[in-house]
């Protein structure tokens, strides 16, 4: 997020796209709802009539995967009606002409056809977005989990730059992170192309710096593989040793049949986790780890805030902190690592090596955490980025993007689009939430959410067991007939093993980010 949760309460206008905030980020949603109750406006762009729709001034139910056409068309209106921030564009951005050229081929009439909403609605939305400044834009995985995810992301950034809504409080481009420490895992360099603090592995200076710090030579100079490439590599034999730490890939990756085949193909698989799960079945060695509340450490949330995590209980049996396990392996391979606690790791290594985190030390985050960039120990942290429109690279660059349809679109054999997400009462594959009885009482099984229209047409009753199939798999589960879901859509989550949406989802990936298209694939439904 460029901005902070703290600003939600006082924001005057929100643009929420592809974010089911009341279920996936419930507490963030409370601050947004507070603002709306105080008079803030809300534009909600989402195929589903989800909870926030009742708070929205306008709900635009665009078709799954039509985001770029919609966003480009908004920009078409803003430019043709002269509603954009000319001062900001002139002084703080580059590439406006290219952007204009691209978005000019998305007049509302044309976009309306792609998006399945009226051209009037597009015009109205654009005008509303331009009517209040600043506008805070929030998105979640509805934007990123597409084969055009990266282009979706640049498109929302284009919109905010065009409106001059960057570099100020209560504005910005705000991806709400799905998991508690996705931000942190990125910051730490658990990515194939960067060291901690986003220093690229292809930079000789960065490698030199880390070679000195880690007292090694010959750090690898080519970008590594992303998860989908690793999974392919397991089958092709390129990857022989695979180490999975804490992710239940056998349920969370698209197309479970394919994933399980890949995991089976590993020559040697290490899985490090707190429970046995669907993924540990494929392991050669399982390493038992201490869980949240059993060790000290830090998380970084969506707003780049590094907060403390504290130990309250002892880990069970002989399970050990994850950092200890990696350190032991290094030791056995001849590398003696000095840091022997999370605090030592943070204070003596991470904050020393990552310039953005240099000013964050454990003693400073005893209470509230600090938001990076925080370059010195005197620095108060950074609640919002690009102050006064000054971008890291100098000027903000418009990156025009053309709309492309999802990799798999509905057809006569598979006439429905399946879209997936999270539900309020569970989290991911339920390895954690599934062990609280009350949460299972509240939501005990997966459902296929379908529209009133389709239910009526097919004679499916609420709670009736149906079959949902894609080209990859088939599951049976109860139908939940709901006004939330538009015609021709099936909506599901991935919390339960048997009826997990990932038996059906399509392993098609964004070419830049290798993010899977969880939000769109073609399915059919049948009465049993």
């Amino acid at each position, binding site marked *: 997020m460029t901005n902070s949760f703290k600003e939600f309460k006082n924001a005057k206008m929100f643009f929420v796209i592809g974010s089911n905030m009341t279920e996936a980020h419930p507490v963030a949603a409370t601050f947004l709802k507070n603002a709306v109750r105080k008079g803030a406006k809300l534009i909600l762009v989402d195929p589903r009539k989800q909870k926030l729709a009742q708070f929205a001034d306008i709900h635009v139910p665009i078709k799954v995967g039509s985001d770029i056409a919609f966003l480009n068309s908004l920009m078409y209106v803003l430019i043709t009606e002269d509603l954009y921030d000319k001062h900001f564009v002139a002084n703080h951005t580059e590439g406006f002409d290219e952007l204009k050229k691209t978005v000019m081929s998305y007049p509302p009439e044309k976009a309306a056809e792609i998006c399945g909403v009226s051209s009037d609605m597009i015009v109205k939305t654009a005008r509303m977005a331009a009517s209040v400044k600043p506008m805070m834009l929030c998105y979640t995985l509805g934007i990123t989990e597409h084969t055009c995810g990266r282009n979706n992301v640049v498109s929302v950034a284009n919109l905010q730059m065009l409106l001059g809504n960057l570099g100020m409080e209560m504005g910005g481009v705000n991806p709400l992170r799905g998991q508690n420490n996705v931000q942190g895992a990125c910051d730490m360099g658990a990515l194939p192309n960067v060291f901690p603090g986003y220093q690229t592995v292809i930079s000789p200076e960065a490698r030199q710096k880390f070679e000195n710090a880690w007292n090694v030579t010959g750090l690898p100079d080519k970008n590594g593989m992303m998860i989908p490439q690793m999974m392919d590599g397991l089958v092709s034999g390129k990857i022989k040793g695979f180490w999975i*730490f804490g992710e239940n890939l056998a349920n969370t990756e698209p197309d479970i049949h394919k994933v399980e085949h890949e995991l089976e193909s590993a020559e040697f698989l290490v899985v490090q986790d707190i429970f046995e799960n669907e993924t540990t079945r494929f392991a050669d060695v399982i390493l038992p780890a201490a869980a949240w509340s059993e060790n000290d450490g830090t998380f970084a949330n969506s707003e780049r805030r590094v907060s403390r995590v504290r130990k309250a209980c002892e880990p069970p049996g002989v399970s050990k902190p994850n950092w200890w396990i990696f350190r032991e392996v290094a030791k056995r391979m001849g590398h003696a690592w000095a840091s022997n606690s999370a605090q030592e790791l943070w204070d003596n290594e991470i904050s020393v090596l990552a310039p953005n985190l240099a000013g964050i030390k454990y003693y400073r985050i005893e209470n509230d955490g600090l938001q990076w960039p925080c370059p010195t120990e005197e620095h108060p942290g950074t609640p919002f980025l690009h102050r006064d429109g000054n971008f890291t690279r100098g000027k903000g660059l418009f990156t025009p993007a053309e709309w492309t349809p999802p990799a798999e679109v509905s057809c006569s054999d598979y006439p429905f689009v399946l879209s997936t997400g999270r539900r309020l009462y569970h989290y991911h594959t339920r390895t954690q939430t599934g062990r609280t009885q009350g949460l299972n009482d509240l939501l005990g099984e997966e459902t296929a959410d379908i529209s009133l229209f389709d239910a009526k047409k097919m004679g499916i009753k609420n709670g009736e067991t149906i079959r949902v199939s894609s080209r990859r798999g088939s599951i049976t589960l109860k139908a939940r007939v709901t006004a939330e879901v538009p015609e021709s859509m099936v909506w599901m989550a991935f919390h339960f093993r048997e009826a997990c949406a990932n038996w059906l989802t399509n392993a098609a990936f964004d070419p830049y980010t290798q993010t899977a298209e969880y939000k769109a694939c073609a399915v059919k439904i049948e009465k049993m």
Partner: protein
Amino acid sequence: MSENLMVINGREVPFSPGQTILEAAVAAGIDIPTLCHLKETTPTGACRVCVVEVEGARSLMTACTVPATKGMVVRTESPMVIQSRKTIVELMLSSGRHDDCLVCPATGDCRLQELAYRYQVKGGKYPDTETLYPMEAVNPLILRNFAKCILCGRCVQACREVQVNDAIDFGYRGAKTKIIAKGDMALKDSDCVFCGQCIQACPTGALVPKDAYQKPRLCETEQIRTTCPYCGVGCQQTLHVKNGKIVQVTATENAEPNQGRLCVKGRFGYDFISSNERLKTPLIKKDGVFHEATWDEALDLVVSKFSKIIKDHGPDAVAGVSCARSINEDSYNMQKLFRAVFKTNNIDHCART
């Protein structure tokens, strides 16, 4: 002399326009007891615990609702104020059943108990009102004990104005008044989303976690602040721990980013920690079956296998996936192991999902 000054208990106190007497007093470090008042919500003036004497006013005024004005002279603990508070507390103690504190999970963490102690009110002066509504124990996660409800309305405020869920409100009238979900249904059949904010707001034992009676009371626990392990909001939580076990989780008040709020997962989703199904020892698979192993056995095996693969096929024949749920320090050490020891950049996590 600056414009906005008032006098509280003989002391000159500044205030900013729009502030209530309570806010001005709090800013000046003067304690006025409150009960129904819930931070960041519209004051309702329902309980009258915060009454103060204002010179020139005909009756006592509720400090949480009355705006401070220039030259106002306020007394917060005058005999009249104290007498009034005693009566209020006495009446609250007769509202339902408050004579069984010894076996109430809220003991030691109860506003009513605190006030009774502060004003030395024992109860029993007025007859207890009849308990009209039985305990509602049919819900997951939340227990509603109407016998302990003093109708202060804090839960309604928490639900309506803090979480904006609008699931509960005052229902019926007069002596029959009850906090109800729509149509007086059980919470599980209502719009309630079980965020538990009402539990956190409840000043008595009327709203408690479902298993509260089977667990140690909050007053017996040690409090440890931490960050929620679920979504990317990063809410600050207070873990209440006894004998090395988490007993309850509440939202840390006045903390960024969540300002005393949690959702259902953050508040209730911690049982996994003490689950019997946790992995307790390393396991090594032999002939398709997992066998318990020591750390030495397991780690030596990992090292020998990875070393051999790297020797035979080069470092890029190994790859690792880190965890977006675990602490930074874990991810740091994992990427360091892959880069500095294995010499590959094949390290990723589910960064984009």
